[in-house]
């Protein structure tokens, strides 16, 4: 990228909006997944949709790849910069533009943090339901890119359930509006396609969110089981009884110990801890809580407690939400996985993980959203010991293989990004991936928007699926196949 273009970028965003010195660029060289690092050519921090459009138009003209970024809390390398590309950081576009309580809608810019949306509508007793563990920092723009989940999506759904409309700058710089404040806007559900596309279809500059009325009451129960097997059986019992709790979370002994060491959540010391949260009308919740209690006891739970105050409830959740970071207390390094399995496969997959863990001589801690089968195995290792990092990576991939074999997914909420694109072809067949790429070509024919992510092999637009035929760019020596 020559200096002329940097000057052009500078004229759009001004000095505070342009980062180009190598020392400062290091801040942006990775996201929450720090084992991938690439230094971008420049980082731009636009403060308006118009600025985003101007920047993207230049990128389009000059064929400069760009990567959108919020707070950089992603765990799959989705916001990892692309070599010779720029990073478009939306952190300065952080205004809540509209709060419409009668219609339960909030319109925000992408840099608004997840928790700030709830903060703004809290006085009217509403909340924004998706609650990734990083919610105090992560941005709505990033949540949209990753289709972020969280503990409460069991009942309330994911980011995509709560995004009704988007203003998007397409990779050619044009501005489009997808969906809207009303439901079922005529046409294709492109807002549904955009959410979770990991920044590969353009940059969202405005997001219309749905908010939810706070339930009359919330009860959180902690049940201590001898092992995750009994805890898993209790989960099946709760679901079989026809209940849909707001959240069901499980932690194994190792993760309980780590969380205790980090935040002193006052968790019982046990082999499998279940956290069940019910919300809704008081009479309903109390009736169901009695049932949950019985199901837990009949499946071998010893200690059962119900959080008695909001403060106690907050502490219980703090322990759970700090679980990843808490691993630092018991291991110098760890890999976080995000596989999903059908809930019924839980005992089988957990014992298989246990076997693999022993075989590799590495500890695996398990923290998971048990209600929807989303596992977060944490493979613990020490980088200083030769060979351990490689062994940990291999073990972590084997765990994903287990998830795929069980009929699950390689990622439930963290995204594919850079990290898991190599295993996409284990989960999807070639025609599946090719069809997704055709949709991508409709949005981004030059493949400038986060170009190297999600898909295992890039596909040139205009390329016919099926038989191999060289693309004109290839024939001209301007592109090559990997």
């Amino acid at each position: 990228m020559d200096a002329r273009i940097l000057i052009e970028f500078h004229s759009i965003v001004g000095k505070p909006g342009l980062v180009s010195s190598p020392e400062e660029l290091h801040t942006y060289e990775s996201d929450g997944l720090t084992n991938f690092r690439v230094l971008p050519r420049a980082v731009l921090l636009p403060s308006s949709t118009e600025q985003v459009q101007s920047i993207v138009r230049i990128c389009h003209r000059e064929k400069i790849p760009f990567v959108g970024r919020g707070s950089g809390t992603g765990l799959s390398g989705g916001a990892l910069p692309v070599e010779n590309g720029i990073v478009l950081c939306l952190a300065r576009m952080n205004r809540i533009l509209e709060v419409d309580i009668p219609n339960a809608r909030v319109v925000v810019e992408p840099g608004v943090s997840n928790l700030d949306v709830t903060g703004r509508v809290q006085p009217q007793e509403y909340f924004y339901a998706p609650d990734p563990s990083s919610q105090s920092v992560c941005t709505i723009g990033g949540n949209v890119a990753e289709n972020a989940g969280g503990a409460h999506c069991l009942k309330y759904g994911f980011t995509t359930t709560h995004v009704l409309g988007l203003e998007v700058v397409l990779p050619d710089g044009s501005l489009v509006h997808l969906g809207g404040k009303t439901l079922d806007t005529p046409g294709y559900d492109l807002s549904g396609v955009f959410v979770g596309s990991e920044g590969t279809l353009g940059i969202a500059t405005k997001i219309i969110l749905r908010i939810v009325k706070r339930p009359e009451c919330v009860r959180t129960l902690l049940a201590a089981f001898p092992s995750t097997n009994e805890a898993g059986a209790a989960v099946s019992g709760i679901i079989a009884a026809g209940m849909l709790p707001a959240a069901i979370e499980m932690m194994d002994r190792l993760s309980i110990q780590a969380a205790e060491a980090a935040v002193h959540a006052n968790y019982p010391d046990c082999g499998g801890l279940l956290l069940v949260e019910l919300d809704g009308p008081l009479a309903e919740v109390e009736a169901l809580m009695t049932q949950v209690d019985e199901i837990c006891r009949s499946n071998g739970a010893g200690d059962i407690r119900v959080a008695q105050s909001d403060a106690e409830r907050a502490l219980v959740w703090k322990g759970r939400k700090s679980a990843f970071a808490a691993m630092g207390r018991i291991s110098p390094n760890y890999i976080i996985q995000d596989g999903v399995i059908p809930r019924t496969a839980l005992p089988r997959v957990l014992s298989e993980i246990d076997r693999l863990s022993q075989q590799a001589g590495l500890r695996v801690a398990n923290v998971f959203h048990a209600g929807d089968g989303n596992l977060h195995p944490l493979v613990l290792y020490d980088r200083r010991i030769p060979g351990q990092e490689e062994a940990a990576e291999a073990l972590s991939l084997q765990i994903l293989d287990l998830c795929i074999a069980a009929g699950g997914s390689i990622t439930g909420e963290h995204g594919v990004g850079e990290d898991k694109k190599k295993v996409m072809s284990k989960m999807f067949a070639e025609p599946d991936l090719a069809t997704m790429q055709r949709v991508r070509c409709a949005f981004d024919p030059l493949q400038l928007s986060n170009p190297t992510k999600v898909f295992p092999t890039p596909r040139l637009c205009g390329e016919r699926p099926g038989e191999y035929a060289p693309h004109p760019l290839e024939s001209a020596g301007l592109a090559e196949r990997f």
Partner: protein
Amino acid sequence: MTQVPATLENNFRAVLRADQMRSASPSDVVSGVQPQLILEPATEQHLAAALRLSNEARLAVIPRGGATKLAWGNSPSRADLILSTTRLNRVLEHAWADLTVTVEAGCTFQTLQETLAQHGQRLALDPLWPEKATVGGILSTNDSGALRLRFGSLRDLIIGVTIALPDGTLASSGGKVVKNVAGYDLPKLVTGAFGTLGVITRAVFRLHPLSHHARSFTIPASNPEETHKLVLAIQDSKLAHTALQSHFFGDAPPTSDILFEGTQAGLDAQAAQLRALCHSTQTSEASVNAWNARQELWSLRDPAETAIAKISTLPADLARTIELFHRASDSYHVRWKSLNYATGLGWLRLEGPVDNLRRVLTSLRADLEQRACSLVLLHRPAEFPAFDAWGIPGDSLPLMKAVKHQLDPANTLNPARFLAGI
């Protein structure tokens, strides 16, 4: 209409048995366009192969399930073949302990629900004509009813899909687990796409338990303004209702129905809270039939003088929307009846002379679109003047056309039936 060449019929024989193809009859007409051939493949591979052959021969294909909503959307510009999913009608896997189901597109909704009910579960949706409507058709038209308030629409319930593309590709996306962010969310793309991008051959859904107990109440009001206030007050309350709908009928006083599901103790408490919230208003227990209202709206006395439209507004626009219905209908002497959900979606039935219907629809659409709302015409009399079913497309139209071009470049599927000629 392109003549289906005899050689092509021979070609189809390579992938379909003789009893899987037949000549179309006048009853197979699609919004005034007569197709020639009906294909009824028995596997998704055969369906994809038949679609590829049609595409290569530049024949226009109309995908069809139970044909209950085949008249929705604009008339096709061409309709050579009907590709029926009737034989793809199996419930492939009800993973009841995981609350998911994999089902073929041609399975009727009722058959699906009966299978799921054996394990006390349901697909939490109340589509029109469940005994005939198929999973594929309900998905393609994105049909939803009163349960949407609580459970969302199909886009929130579908977790995986397989589609056949015109080039013969069979592509799957999503998966069999509820929580999954690997790859693009194509299940949402094909939901509501009116079969213009690919033919849905199978789908995977997340399920909900059947409720143990349910109670419905009807709440009368003296005018739409009062109903409006009631609906907003209920929506802003801590009640955990499953559905909330209001009926408006000319000058008659409106009524609203509310549905609760849960435990007996929970329902009693909610009923008491509802009464407190309605103050002096008399609430009465309603029968479950109240929730057939949407389908009853479709019992047409005189289809030649009736139009039905789907209206989408903001929830808090209810009174203003009803006022618009009143004003437009009165000006052109048209009778009207509407069913409005608390989600902002509504169904409007108009009865009157054809020209007057068109005038009411034109005037209503203009008013609604000005407020970023929409009116989609679903039923129109056979002799109806030109009227676009969809309305003005937004600035994403070029992008929608690009998506269509990527997946169906020869415009084989349902040509011109969708938005802006797609």
